[in-house]
């Protein structure tokens, strides 16, 4: 399960979001770091095939994105930065609904994810009556449905308290074997505890890609 990114560029009008990004990611957990507006979300949306890059190519497991959409969709789990679900839906209904669309026949996955992320008690409560953290946890739970091999998690721990973060990391650790998990974050402690690989973006360029322990040698200000 390798992800190859070759010369990826993306602009919104005159504003350049990604500049010639080239990376090769192997199974494991990778943290995507960088200040606001550095291109993290754009990169994750391109990797999730939700955004078309202006230039460059993407290959997952040796197969180009452009020719393998239906197959690729079956391999992907994605958490968007902003989560706003229909207010009448409940976490259980959302997971069951997306499970149906993903053709997941294995029963018990929904219950397992609700339980692993501590959502059991609010599983049947509408989103309109849930906290921001509970909505984000549901968003994270849906990404794990179908056991995807590529997980793209934008601002993974945004709005989560310490306990909720623990649950998310525990689930991700359990599920990380043989998978590639790429998550963006603004919290260096998350990176330190959760991953050994990091990518740092600045103004759309990759300024660091490697082991987290080497990060502070290359970029002053990143200390763990």
């Amino acid at each position, binding site marked *: 399960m390798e992800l190859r990114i070759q010369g990826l560029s993306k602009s919104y009008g005159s504003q350049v979001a990604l500049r010639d990004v080239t990376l090769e990611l192997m199974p494991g957990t990778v943290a995507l770091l960088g200040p606001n507006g550095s291109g993290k979300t754009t990169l994750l949306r391109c990797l*999730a*095939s*939700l*955004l*078309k890059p202006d230039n460059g190519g993407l290959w997952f497991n040796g*197969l180009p*994105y*452009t*020719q*393998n*959409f*239906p*197959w690729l*969709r*079956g391999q*992907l*789990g*994605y958490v*968007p930065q*902003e*989560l*706003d*679900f*229909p*207010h*009448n*839906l409940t976490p259980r*209904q*959302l997971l069951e*609904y*997306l499970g*149906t*669309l*993903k*053709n997941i026949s294995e029963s018990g996955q929904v219950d397992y994810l609700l339980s692993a992320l501590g959502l059991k008690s609010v599983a049947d409560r509408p989103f309109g009556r849930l906290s921001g953290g509970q909505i984000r946890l549901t*968003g994270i739970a*849906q990404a794990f449905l179908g056991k995807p091999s590529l997980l793209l998690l934008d601002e993974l721990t945004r709005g989560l308290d310490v306990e909720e973060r623990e649950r998310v990391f525990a689930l991700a650790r359990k599920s990380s074997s043989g998978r590639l998990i790429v998550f963006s974050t603004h919290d260096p402690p998350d990176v330190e505890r959760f991953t050994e690989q990091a990518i740092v973006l600045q103004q759309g360029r990759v300024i660091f890609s490697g082991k987290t322990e080497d990060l502070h040698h290359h970029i002053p200000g990143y200390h763990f």
Partner: protein
Amino acid sequence: MKDAIDRLTDGLDETQRQALGDLSALAYLLESDVMPDPGQEDVARLLEALNPYLPVPNAPRPRPPSSWLHLIRSQFVLFESSFWLSGALVLLLGLFITTIDGQELLPLAFVLLSPLLSAAGVAYAFRPETRTLGELERLTATTTAELLYARLALVLAFNLLIALLLLFLIWLEGPQVLLWRLVLAWLGPMLALTGLALFTTVRWGSLVSSLLPFGLWGSMVLLGWREALLHHIASGMTATSWLLIEISRSTPVLIGSMLACLAGIGLLILSGRAASCERQSWN
């Protein structure tokens, strides 16, 4: 021949070679056997055997009819109770109108309100709070066009149910119009407005899909009513009676309804294609 036997017994010691006995017949058979090049049929068979292990090509596979029902049923959870209640309110309004002057008002209310209900249903089904969900839906095995049609089927089925009940009421009242012409005068605008609402949703989002179909239909109703009032002044006939006669007898209204039906179907098909193109534009 000796070379062939040597190759067969390569790595064996003398005792092992002797234990195998005379291998010349076997060596001759292997030497004389020529492996043929695979023909087209062999290649095709091999590819067929490998097919389950290869990635699925981009062209989506057609969905079997039974799973369409499953998909449509799955969409129920996205509709709040207020959606179903609004339909029930339209029915109640129909019942109320029959108590005032059912013979004239109900058929008109049916033709005027039903397309609005359907377009509103489409705008509701793709309301802004489904945007995040829409992104997640795009990352599933179900295509955008399939989802679009499944959700639309639910809206149309509900609208059809209400329309049938209203038609039954009209029939009970003793129709002043030809029922089939009335149905056509309802179906045309309903399909056209629904198609327009769906197409604008796919292309420009829910705000345009809320404003354009309603604005268009409102303008047409106002123009029709103005025409009816002018006839009312000229002939002494009530405006509603004149409009009902137009629905029953006018060839332009008949042709217009048919064209609206075709335009609606065309827009629905275009919406599905636009949704698929948007998904595949990444290519």
